[in-house]
């Protein structure tokens, strides 16, 4: 652990934060501009993982394992979410023959 910490700390924290921010932004933009439900889904995963990366980085820098434990929880959660999300998308496809979210606009006034 100690050696890993040292290796990690060889890279400044700012770099991790910057990388996370970039990945997160890519995820946000992906969600905003894409219409394919699966791509949006992948973008959401990107955002989650950007946060995971940030958590792990802070955890190492502070020498506190709590953050990394937290990352595991998020991963478990994301796996469950993916299972449900993909199931929903499959059902939508069976019903509408499309996974374009702009088609799904009937939930309104």
């Amino acid at each position, binding site marked *: 652990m100690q050696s890993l910490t040292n290796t990690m700390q060889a890279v400044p924290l700012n770099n991790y934060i910057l990388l996370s921010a970039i990945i997160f932004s890519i995820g*946000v933009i992906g*969600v*905003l501009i894409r*219409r394919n439900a699966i791509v949006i889904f992948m973008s959401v995963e990107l955002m989650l993982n950007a946060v995971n990366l940030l958590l792990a980085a802070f955890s190492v820098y502070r020498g506190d394992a709590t953050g990394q434990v937290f990352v595991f929880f998020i991963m478990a959660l994301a796996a469950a979410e993916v299972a449900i999300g993909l199931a929903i998308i499959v059902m939508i496809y069976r019903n509408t023959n499309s996974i374009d*979210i*702009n088609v*799904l*606009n*009937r*939930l*309104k*006034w």
Partner: protein
Amino acid sequence: MDKYIWLIPLLPLAGFIINGIGRNSLSKNTIGFIASLLVFASFALSVGAFLQIKSTGLPINVTVFDWFAVDNFKVPFSFLVDQLSSIMLLIITGVGFLIHLYSIGYMHDDNGFGKFFAYLNLFVFFMLLLVMGSNYLIMFIGWEGVGLCSYLLIGFWYTNPSYADAAKKAFVMNRIGDLGFLIGIFLIFTYFGSITYADVFSKAAGMHSKDAPFVLITLMLFVGAVGKSAQLPLFTWLPDAMAGPTPVSALIHAATMVTAGIYMIARSNILFTMAPDTMEVIAIVGLVTATFAALIALTQTDIKKVLAYSTVSQLGYMFLGLGVGAYTGAFFHVLTHAFFKALLFLGAGSVIHAVSGEQDMRNMGGLKGKLPITFITMLVGTIAISGIPPFAGFFSKDEILAHAFMHSTTFYVVGVITAMFTSFYMFRMLYLTFYGKFRGTTEQEHHLHESPSNMTIPLIILAILSAVGGFIGVPESLGGHHELEHFLAPVFERSTKIMGEQTLPKNTEWVLMAVSVLGAIAALGYAYSKYVKKADIPVAETEERPALVSLSYHKFYIDELYDTLIRKPLDALSVFLYKVVDLLGIDDFINGLGKGTIEASKGLRLLQTGNVGSYIFMMIIGIIAILVYSFISIHNIK
């Protein structure tokens, strides 16, 4: 006696409940019997109370239960029967009983027989509450209650719209007075911290007239009395109140309810004595009302209207008496007036009964032979009201006039002239009704009959009372002892102390009496020559009259004046408030709020497009906004 005092008002209330519930199921005889019997039982108890007070000289004070208490303000439901209220009790239950008896005959063919007696009993109950209460609040309950019964009974034949209007008019006009009375009670509570007579009067007696706003308090109480006792400017309801059945006019609008104002002032005499300015106002209002109403009565052709204006005029006398400090005299007049005015109204009812509902004296005449008992009893009543000795009205009216003379000669002169008017219009009524030839239709003439005995017996009893009732107050100048004054002395003790004894030299008093009696006899003679010898029957409605006669005949256009000055502007204001303020202002504002909300919602709901992308976009915008906000606020803290 103290134990049973609460039964006096309770018995008529029981009568109201029994007759009210059984008005359709009980037979007419039963209803009349129950109603009369219960009032008679009240009368018997009142006599008991009166005798006890007469022998012990101590007032009866009984608390039935504690009504309510707020902080240190406690209102017990308690009765006070002293010299003043014991006499009022006798008048109310005694005259009330006679009128109940009379009504059994008078109302016999009416469909509302049960309802009538229920109302009548209710009225007696409230009237008893009014005089028996030991504080202003109980009096106020009675005050409002009699107003309600008056309304119900004036509008008894409510299917006739003009009768229903008369009832409403009486109610509204009384309302104006009641407001004054209520404000008066509030003021009394503010300055004396209590509304119980005993507390208020003993405190007031210990004060100087500048310690509390006595003038304001008494003026407010007087406004209440003006409404209830039909004085200027609130008198116009009383003549219209003649729309009710005649026994009602006799009981409520002559003998009892309208004297409530006088009773109230006599009861609060110490407050009024402390406010000489108010006394002056009362005297002037009373005098003007007495004269004004007498002037109107001179030319009226409806037999009940003559009596109604005569009542207003006599009430004016009583207020004149109160105003010049003759509390006993005024109350004496209440007593004698109750006898002869109830008699006159019941006699008029007997006449109306005989001529099949006709009330216009132009269509009467010559009834002397056909209705002998009615004629003789009404003659007694007429002599009594005209102030001709030794009948009752002479003594009471003369006492008031003597005190008016002590106060101001002008008051006396106007008072005597009004007394002459009184004598004239009363004998005019008598002559037009009973003398000459019958002027009605032949059908009516066939119908003429003396009333049944249950109507004539009350007439005879009242006639005897009108004839001899004055002897309880024979002044000392005529060799009497004025028992009434001695009996009532404890009630007016405090006021007498402040005002001092007022007496006239005997010679002056004799002259004053002679003047008023001669005046009354002269007016009688003039009426005789005009209506019997010349048979000068008043002309029909449509024909021209001399200007002054026309003015009097049309009641000085007072109703029209009120109509133009008050009713029409009020109507216009109501229409304005309804059409502009209510419809355009309030309604449009409220509807506008509703419409605005609907329109705004129509615009806002477009935000919900159903497009997932736009939702997410908004969410992002929101998150960014929150981040920016917290970023700024963190910086600001630093």
